């Protein structure tokens, strides 16, 4: 099941693309997910991609690597990456063990993420 593309909700808020995948992320589907998130961000022409991991029920190091690589590809397009991982979620648990560092800011909610990205200067 994780070999299949995850369903992704996408919305544009305050100039940011908010993408919300749902399900489990592992090495079987991480690559596909990254390509789709990249495409969504570019297609919208937004300055920031907010990846909301609220609906993710399993995520491991393959998901972390996916975020690193997504940051790399978006950077070339001039799109910033922001991650939402609410407290208690599997993503928050994983991010407590592995820091994303400069790759992406992590917020507890989409609202906070959108507010921060609006303040960011876009290139």
């Amino acid at each position: 099941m994780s070999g299949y593309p995850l369903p992704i909700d996408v919305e544009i808020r305050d100039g940011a693309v908010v993408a919300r995948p749902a399900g489990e992320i592992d090495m079987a589907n991480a690559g596909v997910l990254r390509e789709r998130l990249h495409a969504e961000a570019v297609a919208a022409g937004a300055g920031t991609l907010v990846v909301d991991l609220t609906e993710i029920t399993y995520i491991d190091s393959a998901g972390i690597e996916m975020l690193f690589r997504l940051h790399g590809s978006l950077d070339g397009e001039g799109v910033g990456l922001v991650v939402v991982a609410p407290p208690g979620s599997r993503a928050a648990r994983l991010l407590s063990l592995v820091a994303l560092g400069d790759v992406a800011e992590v917020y507890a909610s989409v609202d906070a993420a959108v507010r921060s990205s609006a303040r960011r200067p876009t290139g």
Partner: protein
Amino acid sequence: VSSSAVPGPSPSVAAEMDRVDWRATPLGPPETWPDSLRSTVQMLLASRFSMWMGWGEELTFFYNDAYAHDTLAAKHPWALGRAAHEVWAEIWDDIGPRIEQVLSTRTATWDEALLLYLERAGYREETYHTFSYSPLTDESGATAGMLCVVVEETERVLGERRLRTLRDLATGLAGAESEAAVYAAVERRLAESPLDLPFTLTYVFDADGGAHLRCRTGTIPAGVPATEHLEAAAMAKAWPAGRVDLPASDEPGAPDTAVVLELSEAGRARPAGVLVAGVTPFRELDTPYLGFLDLVAGQIASSIADVRARESERRRAEALAELDRAKTAFFQNVSHEFRTPLSLIIGPAEDAMAQADDPQQRERIDVVLRNARRLQKLVNNLLDFSRLESGRAEPERELTDLAAFTADLASMFRSATERAGIELVVERPDSSVAAAVDREMWERIVLNLLSNAFKFTFEGEIRVTVVREGDDAVLTVADTGTGIEPAELERLFERFRRVRGARSRTHEGSGIGLALVQELVELHEGTVSMTSAVGVGSTCTVRLPLAAEVPEPGTHAAPTTVAAAYVEEALRWLPGAGEVAAQEDVVTPRAVATDVPRARVLIADDNADLREYLTRLLSRIWEVEAVGDGRAALAAVAARPPDLILSDAMMPELDGFGLLAALRADPATAQLPVIMLSARAGEASAVEGLGAGADDYLIKPFSSRELIARVRANLDLAELRRAAALATERHSQLLRDLADAAIAINRARTAGEVLEVTARRARDLVGAAWALARLSSGGGERSAEAGDVPADEGQGALRVPLSALEARGELVLAGEAETRGVEAEAMLTQLAQVASTRLENALLYEREHRVAETLQRSLLPPSLPELATGELAALYLPGSDEASVGGDWYDAFAIGEHTIALVIGDVVGRGVHAASTMGQLRNAVRAYVHEGYTPAQTLARVDRLLHAIGGGFATLFCALADLRDGSVRYASAGHPPPLVVAADGSTGWLAGGLAPPIGAARNLTFHDAETEVPGGAALVLYTDGLVERRGESIDAGLERLAAAATSSPGHAPTLAARLVREMPEADRPDDVAVLVFARHGVATEPAVVRLPAEPGSLAALRDRLRRWMGDSGVAPGPAQDLLLAVGEAAANAVEHPLEPAPAAIVVTAERDGRDVVVVVRDHGRWQAAPSDQHRGRGLGIMRALASDVDVRRTDAGTFVTIRSQLGDPR
């Protein structure tokens, strides 16, 4: 009854059910209806038998299609869902008390053909219904409504009543001798039928077209003209033929319509009058009603015509009788006047003969003499006859030696017998045979007998004997002639009787010879008889009383000239005598099969010739009896009823019309077909004859062919009529029997009784040798037999289906059950419908306890909550006593994420009431527990509730179990102690927190107690039915229960089943509920998962591990972390091994005390140096999550061992 015409199931009422706003009725929306109502309504709708029912306080009205069609008519669908008293407001005074009686006494009513005025067709309609009310009960056994099974019998009742009116009218009119009597009868009879004939006026026309009012009956409405005499024009204006609207009237029930019918007879140009018949406002003027009025008018018309015809016939008969008397007198006079001249011719002619010498002259005188004598004989016979007829013949007796005299007379025939070649033997004793006789008469006796014998004898002899026998002188004349058939023999002496068909020398003769002999013999106080055998000969015997004296030798009597005339006549019969015998018409041989009983025809005719002719004609085909007048005909009918009467209109004693009236007045002969014969020509006579009640009418003269055709047609018609009458009578008898059977069936209480009564009644109804009624329901079959049912009942048996609710059955009767004809099957079908309806009631009754059981089961939770760390199982067994249901129940429901409520209870009492109390308690417990009350607080509140809802008495146990640690808080209200079965099979009781049963007393105090159900252990909740056995203490039962649970609990369903199975089934008085809560113990088996070494395997691995961890009691939080650690190890195993690379990874997981140990193994070697951050990140995650991670690389592969401390297994 026309139930066979009841339409099949049509969606009409069922469809209308959906359109009714039930919320507006006291019953509320159908979803809220009790099962009893719902099922009764379903039964009602499904039945093809006409029914309605009332339910609830207002007896809300339900009915089926048959009832809508037969009875409600325009009130459908308005009536659906209304209050019964509103639907039947107009007859509530009649049916209200009956319904009240049914509801209060719970006994069924039965009314047959009850008159009810219904307003269903836009007017107040007179109707008749046969119906039964029976009570309907709800789940609690209380009376909740009533059911009416109804058959509308209006048509039958009206039909019978009108038929009765017509019959009474016919009877009343039959005896009417005059027009006045007809009018009196009409007035009296029509007044007896006020329901069909509210009023009548009978006008009879005068010759000038004006009309006189002859009869009036009933209450003539105000404003309706009932004028005594109306001129022609006024009559036509006031009462034109057809339908007439009457002036409006305020009187209730006053007719507003009348029908004017002409009193006309077929074949008459002008009606005799008109009948004005008021039409009841309570019935529609439909075809049967109009037909009835037509028949009434027709009867009156024909009676008027009849009585008028009879009066004219009587006048004619009187005239004819007068003519007859004149004729007799005339003949007497004429005969007398002839005799004298004839004597004056014969005497001188004889003298001249004696003196004549010239042969030519002698010949001439001979011709004169012979013809004069022949004429004289004829005249004498006529005179004799009229003398005999007028009773004025008196023998002039002289003492005579009959032997000598007879011998002399006989010898005179010798010349004739010699010429004919037959022998004449005369035997006489030596001494005299003396008697006092009128010699002339004796002469005629002897000569007639001799002449008769000679006529029929062609060879052999004629033997004349005179002897003394005792006190009698006996004359016998025996011949060896053609003989006479026995049938002819007995009637030989009737006047004008002539033996036909037999070979004879001549057909000449008046047919009075033997009749004359008999009359003459009887004048001498003697007797005459004839014996005969066809082809052998005939012997006639005459007996006269002997005289005491002996005649003087000199008084020898001598034959008169009469004798010579007889002889002369006889000689002329001989061949060559110059006279040719006319050919007798040949009688057709009877071509009727002798084994079929022939119809009998009675002929009444005073004319012997005609009588004889008719007899001869008809006896070829039918058995015939003939009598001379109406009175004799009545006597003959009484002695042996014929199949048809052929009667002359005009007869002495009792004429044809009198005969007809007498026959029609007697019910036994009212239907006997009568054909009238009349000499009167013209169509009018026929009409009069038919009007008098004759079935047919023939005018003389008629052809034999026509007569036979008419007789045959009327016999056939009578046969048809008899068959039809028989069928009708049989049918009405069947209907009566059916009604009786229906009553009996409706009295039966149980389905078994219904079957029994049905079988017996069905057998009796059609007169079968045996009957069998059976019903299959719920997998079982019940049956009842009447008579000896053979083993192979299927052979040629008559089968009628039975059905009740979903049950199906049949009524089987012996195959020869055809004794009551085709109606039998229709009747049986109706009987089966009655039985089916009653069976439905009985089944509903029997099903009451099943309803309660169903109710109880429906209150038990349909499914139990799914638990991650344990398992629930429940069992419910109904009590062995089928007639009642206990109030046991259990319940289990989650409170939040970590708590489950376990409840078990037992409401004391049985049946629907206990079950419904149980439902209330169950809901209350749920509510209070959800509110957050502890078990003890919950029990206290439920206790108060039980008092509030009317008391009762229940044991109740309530527990709240923490799914995480197995801690349990509980309280018990008098309930048997739940059992804890530990993982090792040891047992203990939850004996704490005990209080009396709820409802036992006021203000009970309840306490919570606490315990723990460890992992792998089970908590068993049960009701007393599991442990209570008759004649045994409860402790013994508890010991047995504990003993039954000796091994590890294992699966909850298995434990529940085992406990129930181990307990003795016998004598289990109560129902049983068992609820088992089992906690998962340590999973004893490690999980081993082997997967292809590819990314897609990772999700499958996670799923398998999640299940295993759930089974092993790993809490969700730690389980997620372990899953992530294993996931990282597995991802490495998929991604990093270089070679060799058999594409498989093997994961094993097992409990080790408080820890879970997972080993992920691949079959290759990891790359010596990680090429990116990724693997290092994965390993870091593993180490962060697990208490210990060990990576061991070997030649056989890499082993990653993850140990996670997860706390105590529970």
